[in-house]
């Protein structure tokens, strides 16, 4: 039985039935990683020893009847910008190539509290800046559906590992689409929660007002369960919301009868692949047949979302990455004085995209430019958020493509601007703090997964989960792909 390719729910059921052990589940994942990851490159660090020890403890707990949770013993992978104590955390960068976190991220503590063995840390674009994982300073990650194509980014390793059956589920992070876009490219479910739902403590900061931890999974049910596992108030994160975590599992069977679903007017959508348009059409039909009311709803200023996002993200990134100066951690290149040491360390530690964003961020925050760029972007952000608020008075959920195209080839997007455009449908949710979910829905002519995105009002994950669950039942041709040698 190829345990590694099963969903988390299936593994949990087999564990509960005593048909497999957690050690066997972890061994299955590790075996598949050993066989395939040389080509795929999802994992930066494989935590074989730690995972097997954790699995063994889980099996022990099961024998003694003191399970920690429903997911006790189910393996999980974690993006390499989430701290796991004692395990190297690179953030895909030379700057932190040897960095070892002194404590766990809040979400990692949650995983451990619930007994989930962590099988490894996954590859990513450097400091989460990118949409293809091509900007990882460490290694290439390939899309399991086509090894010449990118898995998306920045959580490319997490998405690819789930798609290739190396792990049932994984954590990622999403600042402008970094969970949903790779989910779309890799044919898996990607969820970004409402801003503040999940603690950011221990998530390496990129853009603090946009960052959220998210989930990558094979099914909506798994994604909802993993999100429920990591959500919740954290005193240690000042942006953490003190709100009840709904029982999302129970809402998956409610259906969409009477639900109002909004789609964008044709005019507001830029160059969308015909196959993706087709998938949207079919999705609308499925939802209508299931009893939903689908209507067009315009979102003003959506065409300014990319510019707004990049100005804010770059500004915040330049501030957040100021801490990497070679003093307390990270790469240090010595200099004649401290300032020279900072300059040299940062020049050597950061890749070209990170440098670009730091420079631009510094520029838009500098005296004389702050109002014209940064303040302006924050004002347009308000207008965009208000626009969504008005839209959600008319509809319950929004349906759009996650990405306008399917996965592109390595090296295809050389121009930074072309790369930034891939986030066109995903950045709005980060700007307005909305929950959003990418669901795989069909394949394009070249056999690559298409992703459709549901977005809901703040704290209304239940509505997007309900809608996604209905669509999931009707999706065509999605299968967990194995990497062929």
């Amino acid at each position, binding site marked *: 039985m190829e345990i590694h390719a099963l969903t988390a729910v299936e593994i949990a059921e087999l564990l509960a039935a005593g048909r497999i052990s957690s050690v066997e589940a972890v061994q299955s994942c590790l075996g598949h990683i050993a066989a395939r990851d040389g080509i795929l490159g999802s994992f930066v660090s494989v935590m074989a020893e730690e995972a097997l020890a954790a699995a063994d403890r889980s099996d022990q707990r099961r024998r003694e009847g003191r399970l920690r949770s429903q997911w006790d013993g189910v393996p999980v992978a974690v993006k390499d910008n989430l701290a796991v104590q004692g395990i190297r955390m690179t953030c895909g960068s030379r700057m932190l190539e040897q*960095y070892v976190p*002194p404590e766990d991220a809040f979400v990692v503590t949650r995983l451990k509290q619930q007994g989930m063995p962590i099988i490894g840390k996954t590859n990513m674009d450097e400091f989460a800046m990118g949409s293809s994982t091509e900007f990882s300073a460490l290694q290439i990650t390939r899309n399991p559906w086509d090894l010449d194509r990118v898995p998306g980014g920045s959580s490319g390793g997490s998405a690819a590992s789930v798609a290739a059956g190396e792990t049932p589920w994984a954590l990622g992070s999403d600042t402008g689409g970094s969970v949903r876009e790779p989910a779309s490219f890799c044919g898996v479910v990607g969820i970004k929660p409402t*801003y*503040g739902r999940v603690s950011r403590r221990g998530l390496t900061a990129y853009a603090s*007002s*946009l960052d959220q931890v998210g989930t990558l999974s094979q099914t909506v049910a798994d994604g909802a369960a993993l999100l429920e596992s990591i959500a919740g108030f954290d005193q240690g994160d*000042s*942006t953490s*919301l003190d709100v009840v975590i709904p029982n999302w599992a129970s809402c998956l069977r409610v259906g969409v009868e009477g639900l109002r679903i909004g789609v964008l007017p044709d005019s507001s959508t830029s160059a969308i692949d015909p196959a993706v348009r087709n998938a949207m059409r079919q999705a609308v039909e499925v939802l209508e047949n299931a009893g939903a009311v689908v209507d067009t709803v315009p979102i003003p200023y959506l065409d*300014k979302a990319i*510019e*707004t996002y*990049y*100005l804010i993200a770059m500004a915040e990134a*330049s501030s957040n990455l*100021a801490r990497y*100066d*070679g*003093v*307390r*951690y*990270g*790469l*240090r290149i*010595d*200099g*004649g*004085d*401290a*300032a*020279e040491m900072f*300059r*040299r360390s*940062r*020049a050597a530690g*950061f890749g070209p995209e990170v*440098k*670009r964003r*730091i*420079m*631009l961020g*510094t*520029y838009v925050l*500098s005296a004389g430019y702050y109002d*014209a760029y940064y*303040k*302006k*972007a*924050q*004002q*347009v*952000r*308000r*207008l965009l958020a208000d626009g969504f608020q008005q839209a959600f008075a008319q509809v319950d959920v929004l349906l759009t493509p996650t990405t306008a195209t399917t996965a592109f080839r390595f090296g295809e997007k050389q121009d*930074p*601007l072309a790369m930034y455009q891939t986030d066109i449908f995903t950045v709005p949710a980060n*700007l*307005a*703090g909305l929950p959003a979910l990418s669901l795989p829905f069909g394949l394009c002519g070249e056999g690559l997964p298409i992703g459709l995105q549901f977005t809901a009002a*703040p704290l209304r994950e239940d509505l997007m989960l309900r809608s996604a669950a209905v669509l999931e039942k009707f999706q065509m041709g999605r299968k967990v792909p194995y990497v062929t040698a």
Partner: protein
Amino acid sequence: MAKIDVARLAVLAHLELTEQEQIAMRAEMASILKAVEALQDVETEGVEPLHHAVELTNRMRTDDCLSSLPQERVLANGPHVVQGFFRVPRILGDS
């Protein structure tokens, strides 16, 4: 748009860039900044900037002493640690 003073920005950002890198950086920045010019068309008179998606106010905790990371763990990643200090080259130069 005024020519971007990449050299000055590099100093502010504490980045050492070669002459070549500065030239490339200037071109890339100009191109990206040109693209975001589109925002100037949006009427934002009287619009309050949105700094955070979910607008919360600071929640203060009681001033209780809690445990923190042991010093050895904090120092463990230090590139150059001397007697419990992070050692760096001299801060104040001749300038």
